């Protein structure tokens, strides 16, 4: 049955998170970008919104809510509307919590899920991307070789968010023909966390390179045990989450440019009254809505348990280029002012560029 209506609960989450993003996250974004630090109190406050805890089963101390990709998409958009770096940081624990929740075996669920029901922010992460120009999720060079009853991991990863402070990490590695996930403790021998990475945007988000050198893990570390994981589904969830965040960033840039155009005067009238500007804004509005609907479509398929690799791939690729264009337009509408760091649009443009090339920073 075709419907474009969010549930009551989803609308409520959207409103609550967006209000929080506007009041608490947005004001902290510029300082965080300049300093490279996100205040831990802010991260804790976001944690207390319960965006992770809500779907942890009651048996593990959580709220036992039904996990929904559409709900995840709605929340991710609202959070990223505040700031992309802060939103990703706050949701990084999902990178471990959700795969364990969905595909972990009994023992893994019992061991790891309670971490995310705690009152304090629990850093946990996942290592997917590798430092190669043509990296993609179907060509994971990191390997997991069977050895005795366990595995030996070798390879290099990059863009691993919060790698240094994470208690546990999932490392994705090729294991025979399939890609599997391995849960490693932060200080595991053979796992070396590199320097913090320096990037064009997302400067507030701490990401790291990882080296795995003959890193031995026991059989129990393999996510999902013998059965393994549905890697395509995990990737779909990550892509759709990235798409949702892109929509949030696009919307913040659009609104900022719109408000600026309404108030900035040239030749005796607000620049918004000129078609050259007004049409740019109209096209931005169309692309934001189109992007959101693509994200919703992929998410609703995930919620029905259907394969959504193509849909999430489409949603992510589409929104990644849409958000870039929208942020670029926002800078353009502000003209010289858009280039100055006094306004946030240049930061959004730098951040938005990341969507096209970065994978595995967030999930729904």
């Amino acid at each position, binding site marked *: 049955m075709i*419907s474009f*209506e969010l549930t009551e609960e989803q609308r409520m989450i959207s409103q609550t998170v967006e209000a929080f993003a506007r009041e608490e996250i947005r004001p902290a974004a510029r300082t965080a970008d300049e300093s490279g630090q996100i205040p831990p109190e802010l991260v804790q406050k976001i944690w207390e919104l319960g965006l992770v805890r809500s779907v942890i089963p009651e048996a593990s101390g959580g709220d036992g809510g039904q996990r929904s990709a559409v709900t995840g998409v709605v929340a991710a958009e609202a959070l990223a509307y505040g700031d992309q770096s802060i939103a990703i940081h706050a949701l990084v624990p999902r990178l471990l919590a959700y795969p364990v929740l969905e595909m972990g075996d009994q023992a893994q669920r019992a061991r790891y899920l309670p971490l995310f029901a705690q009152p304090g922010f629990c850093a946990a992460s996942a290592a997917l991307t590798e430092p190669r120009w043509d990296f993609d999720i179907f*060509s994971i060079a990191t390997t997991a070789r069977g050895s005795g009853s366990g595995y030996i991991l070798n390879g290099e990863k990059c863009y691993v968010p919060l790698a240094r402070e994470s208690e546990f990490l999932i490392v994705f590695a090729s294991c025979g023909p399939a890609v599997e996930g391995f849960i490693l403790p932060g200080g595991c021998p053979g796992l070396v966390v590199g320097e913090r990475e320096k990037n064009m945007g997302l400067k507030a988000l701490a990401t790291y390179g990882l080296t795995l050198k003959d890193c031995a893990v026991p059989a129990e570390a393999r996510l999902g045990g013998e059965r393994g994981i549905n890697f395509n589904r995990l*990737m779909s969830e990550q892509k759709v989450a990235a798409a949702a965040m892109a929509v949030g960033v696009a919307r913040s840039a659009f609104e900022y440019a719109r408000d600026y155009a309404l108030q900035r005067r040239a030749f005796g009238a607000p620049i918004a009254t000129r078609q050259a500007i*007004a049409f740019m804004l*109209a096209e931005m509005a169309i692309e934001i809505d189109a992007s959101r*609907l693509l994200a919703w*479509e992929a998410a609703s398929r995930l919620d029905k348990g259907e394969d959504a690799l193509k849909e999430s*791939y489409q949603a992510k690729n589409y929104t990644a280029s849409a958000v870039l264009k929208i942020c670029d337009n926002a800078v353009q509408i502000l003209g010289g002012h858009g280039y100055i760091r006094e306004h946030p649009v240049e930061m959004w443009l730098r951040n938005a560029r990341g969507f096209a090339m970065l994978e595995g920073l967030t999930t729904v």
Partner: protein
Amino acid sequence: MIDFEPDHDLQRRIDAYRIVARQIMRPISREYDENEHARPTKFYELMWAGRAQAGLEVGPDKGARSNRMRTLFTILAAEELSWGDVGLFLQIPNPGLGGAAVMAAGTPQQKERFLKRFSEGNPKWAAMAITEPGCGSDSAAITTTARREGDHWVINGTKIFCTGGKMAAELSEGFVVVWATVDKNAGRAGIKPFVVEHHTPGMSVVRVENKLGIRVSDTAALVFEDCKIPLDNVLGSPEVKPEGGFKDAMATFDATRPIVAAMAIGVGRAALDFVRDFLSERNMEIRYGLSPQRLTAIERDFMEMEVQLKAARLLAWRAAWLLDNGQRNSLEASMAKAKAGLAVTQITQKAVELLGPLGYSRAYLLEKWMRDAKINDIFEGTQQINLLIIARRILGYSSKDLN
């Protein structure tokens, strides 16, 4: 709950249209493109005979479909049939834009009186005449007049680009909804829709245009010379109010723009399906999930076309869904129309390019779809008019503030 998959019943009805598109429309598609002004009479009769079963619009609030799904069903059907041939789709005997104007502006009695004919007798058409030689997008500048004279309205003026005008005015027992001003000084408020019955003395079709595409669809120029029609043929209230008739014209567009978007999408899908099959026959399958660096140029182009089409479709579905759920959709209807019109224009042009020298040949329908697609970015409000509407809405501007 968010869900973008048609349910079983809806899908079953759409599948019926898919068969019509494939088996009835496609085989005659080229023939009626080449013989521009020939009439596919057999097609008319087939579509007319099958209209009730198919759940096509057959009068006020009738038909197999429930009102809650009305517009959505219509646009799904429009996509399927336009996949077959968008020109033929426009020529299906039906109430068309004239009917949409009656639905948007007419009283319950008028709906019954004017639309009843579509459930009986011979194939019929209804058309809408709004554009004039001197005004297109600026429809508030209409110069056609309606003067009250005793128990009649007397209409004078020239209308062009009237889709289905010949069929409605002269070749069936249909009607034309003519937008005319009752008071030039009143501006928009003075513009009203009038129903002019087929073969009314004083109304004549003076020309049927030769076009780039949708050639089978007749695009008529009509002249009204002291054309007398009954008083109660003015749709809605005849009074001149500040928020009067023009609003009704705009309400008509809220319902029809998603349909035009769906038509565009049907053409775009035809082109994409063709290219996909063409590549597949040459062992080129599109691979999803890879990084862009690993894709071929054709894969990248194809994927871009495919997702653009889907984005347009979701926008069109949303605009229709809002209308079916009693919500205002002017903004969303314009978004869908602007997106679909442009996206499909570009998709079909790219598709022709992808096939190299073969794409340009009339041996395939691809070149025709490129020509057909373009109209969707023009009629029912050009790309630019829709951007204006969107911009006014998002900026809170009136048409005076932003024009």
